[in-house]
């Protein structure tokens, strides 16, 4: 079986490797660089920059850790970007190496569907090629959404792509949109000393998270002196000599050196021949797929951002595996019941399962348990005491249905709860499991105990 995959992001490259492992003859078509948005313009580069910013932030606390500093510590964004590029480069080599080892053929260029078995590739050198395949997986991803209000210029009006490559720390920065991307950049630049003002149309930052998480994040932003304006939009942006002027919907005006626009993502579902072969799309341009990740055309699958779902790398990868298995004749269905998600702010945020407000919307009666990181010896030893863990459990069954964490290493801690939810475990199962001391994971055990008011390290209420 010959399989062609268009797009080598976390959806496409994982699908390609899975299919190759299952014996398919695989060709991947990629027009920018393997790894896609995640590796080149998203997850990995932001985490590399964040690591630099956090390392610098730690130096401001040296005194608290009993370390004296003679001289000064200076952040150099150009060097940080160079390090980031090195980190990305290592991962690119890794994916290319995996392709080689599994015999996946990589064609670099832009793929356009000619018919359900033929893809024309316009290669980077201008020549054209045709890839023939029995089955096709479309994994073309997404890009920063742009609207005429914000004409990206790559210098002062920035998309998230641009923000990864500026080499001088801006004195001041307006961030439009306090979603995941906006909040992560706010933390990175604030740690480096930039004056950051965020403007969010919705009533709260990271509005898809549990309400209590947004509340604590807002407090932490206040501590860091990140200004967060909510319930207000940006109506006009103009460039002047003294910087970028942003006119807000409440009539106020903000001025800053640069503006970063993170208002969402646009899907890459145009200009790839979907209309030619009759692949159906939804209202937002998302490719419509069934539980097997197959489009309305037999043998053509679509995975990842371009299908308009959760826009998470790890979801794209899972969808890629499901599509590859189905394409290779092993029937599999996608299961979205347990999808952990992480936001790399400082402190970190991670969640899985139901938010408390979602349970209410669905009419599910729930109980919650809370635990503050500041009640853990390990958190104090690390010097990171802000944040909490919240467990949401179904009242009738005592089953864990959600977990929400804001605090140190939240993104690593969340998976114990994810496994508990996936396995249908009860609060007691988590509370009764001995957790190593001293660790941050003890917080999950205590939060579970707190669902029934039985946490040991919580004062009497």
């Amino acid at each position, binding site marked *: 079986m010959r399989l062609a995959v268009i797009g080598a992001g976390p959806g496409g490259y994982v699908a390609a490797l899975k299919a190759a492992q299952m014996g398919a003859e695989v060709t991947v078509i990629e027009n920018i660089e393997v790894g896609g948005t995640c590796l080149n313009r998203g997850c990995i580069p932001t985490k590399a920059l964040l690591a630099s910013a956090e390392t610098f932030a730690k130096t401001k606390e040296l005194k608290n850790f009993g370390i004296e500093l003679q001289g000064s510590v200076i952040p150099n964004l150009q060097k940080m970007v160079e390090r980031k590029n090195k980190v990305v480069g290592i991962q690119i080599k890794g994916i290319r190496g995996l392709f080689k080892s599994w015999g996946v053929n990589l064609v670099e260029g832009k793929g356009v569907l000619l018919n359900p078995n033929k893809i024309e590739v316009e290669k980077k050198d201008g020549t054209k090629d045709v890839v023939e395949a029995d089955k096709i997986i479309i994994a073309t991803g997404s890009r920063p959404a742009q609207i005429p209000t914000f004409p990206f210029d790559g210098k002062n009006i920035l998309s998230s792509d641009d923000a990864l490559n500026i080499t001088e720390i801006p004195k001041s920065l307006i961030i439009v949109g306090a979603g995941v991307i906006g909040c992560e950049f706010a933390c990175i630049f604030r740690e480096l000393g930039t004056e950051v003002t965020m403007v969010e149309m919705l009533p709260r930052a990271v509005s898809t998270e549990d309400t209590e998480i947004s509340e604590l994040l807002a*407090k932490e932003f*206040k*501590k860091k002196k990140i200004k967060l304006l909510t319930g207000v939009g940006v109506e006009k942006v103009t460039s002047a000599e003294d910087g970028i002027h942003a006119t807000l919907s409440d009539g106020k005006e903000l001025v800053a050196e640069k503006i970063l626009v993170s208002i969402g993502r646009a899907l890459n579902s145009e200009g790839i021949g979907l209309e030619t072969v009759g692949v159906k799309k939804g209202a937002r341009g998302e490719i419509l797929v069934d539980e097997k990740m197959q489009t309305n055309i037999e043998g053509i699958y679509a995975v990842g951002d371009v299908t308009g779902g959760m826009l998470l790398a790890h979801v794209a990868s899972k969808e890629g595996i499901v599509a590859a298995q189905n394409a290779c004749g092993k029937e599999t269905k996608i299961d979205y019941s347990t999808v952990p998600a992480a936001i790399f702010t400082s402190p970190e945020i991670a969640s899985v399962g139901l938010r408390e407000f979602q349970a209410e919307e669905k009419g599910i009666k729930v109980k919650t348990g809370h635990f*503050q990181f*500041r*009640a853990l010896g390990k958190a*104090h030893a690390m010097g990171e*005491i*802000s944040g909490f863990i919240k467990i949401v459990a179904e009242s009738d069954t005592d089953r864990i249905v959600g977990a929400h964490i804001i605090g140190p290493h939240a993104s690593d801690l969340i998976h114990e709860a994810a496994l508990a939810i996936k396995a249908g475990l009860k609060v007691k199962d988590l509370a009764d499991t001995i957790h190593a001391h001293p660790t941050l994971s003890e917080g999950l055990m205590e939060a579970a105990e707190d669902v029934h008011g039985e946490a040991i390290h919580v004062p009497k209420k």
Partner: protein
Amino acid sequence: MNPEDLKYHKEHTWVKVSGKKATIGITDYAQEALGDIVYIDLPEVDTIAEANTEISEIESTKATSPVISPVSGTIVEVNEELSDSPEIINEDPYGKGWIAVVELSDESELDELMDASDYEKYIEEEAK
């Protein structure tokens, strides 16, 4: 010891009156109970403080606790020094650790507060 010239609220805040103005802070008992204070979310000048409601939030290494205003009025001054050095509250709760100054809107509220000796008895009870 709690200063004699202050009035005390049962939520462990104090007030020092000077004409129409009143300075607010937390008591020594409160700072002791909270432990090392790491952050205070200061109120904003020109906002309204209402007696018996939260005007600020204090975060210590142990807990996060609201600061309950003992009186009502307009906040005319806040102790900005606390935003960078909240530990001053631990060091000097009745002096340099003051939190805000309020222009009183209802002086009769002062009569409902405790004097130093009543507050002393009150915290003894609470400690039991």
